């Protein structure tokens, strides 16, 4: 045994592991509020916000007939401004047929398969991000309600557990940064609260649109963990926990982030 446990008397002086405090509703802050005024201006001005291109593309796709069924989203859902208002603000949502939650991108692909008889769009594809951005933009300014459905409770609990779990070679949990150190800086970057309020986002670092799952995978790779696969139950559970943790915060899609 290379460690001599008996020698660690001093370790007993250290604090016992305390449960990380969750952020009280009044202190919740979007990633927006940590940004430079330039980035804020880019998000606020629809003519400057690169995410608006995805919205426009999504709008076109919404009206385009697809698949063997030859139907467009609009053929079933009509005007997205009414039918999709508030929808993204309650996702991920429980899918009764599957018996588990699905996120917005998965929901879109389920509609493609079942109602359009079309093949699913690949994760992070242009088309999938554009449709998700278009749908989510219909909830811009609406408060997040994810978690109101009690069927989600066990999945939210699973996501919370993953959020609290140390992982990776650097042995850091999401909570270590996003609950306990959101007012600090990791090198040049504001740590932020990791709020999921603006997805899909246009990220300056990516020079592209990306999903919440892509962002989470970035943080997992950052702590040198094996990132969960796109669409895996763990990933959806994490998204779900993040959305329920942001309950009541307004949706900002399409947001801009550094």
């Amino acid at each position, binding site marked *: 045994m*290379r*460690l*001599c446990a008996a*020698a*660690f008397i*001093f*370790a007993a002086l*250290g*604090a*016992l*592991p*305390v449960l990380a405090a969750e952020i009280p509703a009044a202190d919740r802050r979007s990633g927006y509020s940590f940004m430079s005024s330039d980035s804020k201006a880019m998000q606020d001005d629809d003519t400057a916000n690169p995410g608006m291109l995805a919205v426009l593309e999504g709008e076109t796709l919404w009206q385009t007939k697809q698949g063997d069924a030859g139907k467009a989203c609009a053929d079933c859902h009509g005007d997205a401004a009414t039918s999709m208002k508030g929808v993204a603000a309650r996702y991920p949502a429980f899918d009764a047929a599957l018996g588990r939650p699905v996120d917005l991108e998965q929901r879109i692909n389920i509609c493609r398969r079942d109602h359009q008889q079309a093949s699913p769009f690949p994760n992070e594809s242009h088309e999938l991000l554009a449709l998700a951005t278009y749908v989510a933009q219909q909830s811009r300014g609406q408060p997040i309600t994810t978690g109101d459905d009690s069927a989600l409770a066990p999945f939210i609990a699973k996501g919370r557990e993953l959020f609290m*779990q*140390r*992982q*990776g*070679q*650097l*042995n*850091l949990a999401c909570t*270590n940064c996003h609950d*306990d*150190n959101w007012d*600090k*800086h*990791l*090198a*040049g*970057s504001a*740590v932020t609260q990791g709020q999921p309020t603006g997805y899909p986002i246009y990220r*300056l*670092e990516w*020079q592209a649109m990306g999903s919440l799952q892509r962002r989470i995978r*970035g943080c997992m*790779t*950052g*702590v*040198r*963990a*094996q*990132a969960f696969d796109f669409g895996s139950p763990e990933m959806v559970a994490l998204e779900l926990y993040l959305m329920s943790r942001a309950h009541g915060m307004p949706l900002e899609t399409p947001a801009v982030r*550094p």
Partner: protein
Amino acid sequence: MAAIACCFLAAALPHVAVAQALASYSIAGDGIAESLTGQPGDAVRGRALVADRSSTCILCHAAPLPEVRFQGDLAPNLAGVGSRWSVPQLRLRLVDASKFKSDTIMPSYYRVDGLTRVGRNWQGKPILGAEQIEDIVAYLATLRD
């Protein structure tokens, strides 16, 4: 702009520490008295390692390295650590900081067990090699008030 915000710890790094057994060490009191390599570290190399983001120190800590533009503030400034801690204490702090504080966020730089879901590229490897730790310890010891 994008470059600064860029990927905090994510860069795919050349892995200095190859999969190999860790050098054995023994803890006495609150430190590790002997060098992990049996050799003294090189403070100049240690300074360069701390300044290099891929070693990760500077993401959380600030240090008296004026050329490094973006330094962290998640952890105490390393200026003066050589006065606050002895060389054996600094060595143990790097090897396994949880021995000082069980819930610390500071990673254990020379440990491969008790970790969850370590990424494929990093499995079975400590964050830093023994020689790098000795170099950094030698540098930190020079940071005196």
